[in-house]
């Protein structure tokens, strides 16, 4: 691993439009949607039907704050994570990359580091922007600050979740190598599989659901553990991290062995 490899991966990632568009979509959707939901809650505060929202805001404020905007915005991060690697295969650029860097694992590591840092910075800006914008909108009704129990951890947890999600998607992209197939797989794992599993009654299904990568991973972005949660916030994050490490290892193992 040399600084040159990191510089090269940075050049690659910044020089294609899909990166800019994905990140812009993430920021706009996350902030816009969160602000919209906060405005709706604030404007209908005295509506009797809004009571569950009040309760949720008091018991787990960040779930309400992050739920909508980041829940939707995370899809853009997942898509970007996939295409950071799969687009090299679909365009043939992987051949140029591997002729320049025939040692494939260092190339993968450099790609992971550069993308994770970019993801981390953009996520940090977005998560705090979402937090401060939505709490400002809700201020006249409810006061939520970083000093409340679990709130700072949930903000940092949200940033970490989005960073690891990017790497999780990158691993799937590197394993499947086809952009459409990999995006469908990742989005299916985020949006489709969890509700399907949760339909199955029984404690075994409940535990399977709890250990699904993104279900476990999102726990750390909640300010307090809910009764239905199988894992604690950090346990959940650990499970998500484990999923990601295993998939990245498989990705690296195959990358080193498959024909490019």
């Amino acid at each position, binding site marked *: 691993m040399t600084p*040159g*490899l990191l510089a*090269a991966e940075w050049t690659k990632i910044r*020089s294609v439009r899909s990166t800019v568009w994905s990140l812009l979509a993430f920021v706009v959707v996350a902030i816009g949607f969160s602000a919209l939901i906060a405005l709706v809650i604030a404007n209908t505060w005295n509506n009797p039907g809004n009571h569950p929202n009040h309760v949720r805001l008091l018991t787990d404020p960040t779930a309400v704050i992050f739920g909508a905007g980041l829940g939707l915005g995370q899809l853009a991060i997942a898509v970007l994570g996939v295409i950071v690697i799969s687009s090299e295969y679909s365009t043939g650029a992987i051949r140029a990359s591997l002729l*320049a860097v025939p040692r494939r694992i260092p190339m993968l590591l450099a790609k992971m580091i550069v993308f994770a840092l970019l993801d981390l910075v953009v996520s940090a800006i977005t998560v705090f922007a979402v937090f401060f914008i939505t709490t400002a909108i809700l201020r006249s009704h409810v006061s939520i600050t970083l000093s409340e129990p679990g709130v700072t951890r949930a903000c940092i947890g949200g940033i970490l979740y989005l960073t690891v999600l990017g790497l999780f998607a990158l691993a799937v992209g590197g394993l499947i190598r086809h952009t459409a197939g990999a995006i469908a797989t990742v989005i299916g794992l985020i949006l489709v599989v969890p509700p399907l599993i949760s339909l199955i009654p029984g404690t075994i299904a409940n535990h399977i659901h709890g250990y699904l990568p993104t279900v476990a991973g999102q726990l750390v972005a909640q300010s307090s553990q809910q009764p239905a949660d199988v894992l604690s916030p950090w346990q959940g994050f650990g499970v998500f991290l484990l999923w990601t490490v295993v998939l990245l290892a498989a990705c690296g193992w195959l990358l080193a062995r498959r024909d490019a």
Partner: protein
Amino acid sequence: MAQAPGLIEARDLTKRFGDKVAVDHLSFDVEPGRVTGFLGPNGAGKSTTMRLITGLDRPDGGSATIGGLAYNQLSKPLTRVGALLEARSLHPGRSARNHLLFLAQTQGVAASRADEVLDLVGLREVANKRAGGFSLGMTQRLGIAAAMLGDPPVLMLDEPVNGLDPEGIRWVRTFMRQLASEGRTIFVSSHLMSEMAVTADHLVVIGRGSLIANCSTEEFIERSSERSVLVRSPDAARLRELITADGGTVQAESGSDQNSNDLIVTGLPAPRIGKLAASASLVLHELTPRLPSLEEAFMEMTADSVEYGRSSAG
């Protein structure tokens, strides 16, 4: 073991795709200072061999080295080997300059080198344009620019004139000859014999993944096909008898009748025919040994190994 940095060695290279053997125990050397043509019909395994040498594909057997090292052991590979494989080996959304910039960064090569090679291939004006908008010819030029980025002693070019206009083809030929004269190793594949006849000093010919010939271009033409001699004589009928009696075979030239003065003789060398004519005091107007074209030689040698049906020798 010290070795010339420009020497490519393939030893027993083997690659299978499922049941199909794409490269079959292939061994050859590619020497510096000359253009070595890598010739074979479509599907003969040329591209696969180049992918094995550059480590993009893993061989099922055998090895390939450049200057004694496997490709993935080269520390800054682009400064040792420049390769133009498939033309579309780039992200269409990335500009030509950024494509070269990231490659330069991986090698620790100065970023200014990107502009130098863009000048070299005449793409400076479109340096900031997205490569996806380039014609195939421009894409090939960008590929050649990438191959030249590290100023390497070895160049491997897979069908470099594909998609180029006549001016571009001439440019690539001149370029390859010039690089070879600088002492570099030029290994260039083609399925076009006519192309190799004018560019290559040496030929490595393969068919169905196996080596058919590894020799100089002239030698390939000479030894691959039976040579014939054109004889023109006012006493053609008499001469024909003498030649046949001496073991030669006379073919009528296509489009000429039996009584033509022109004879195409195979099986006897020109000096022997001259001697026969002299001994019988026959007048000769012409006595010309004829070499088959490289095209004919190639067709003859690879006739058994054409992968996808027989192509006509046209």
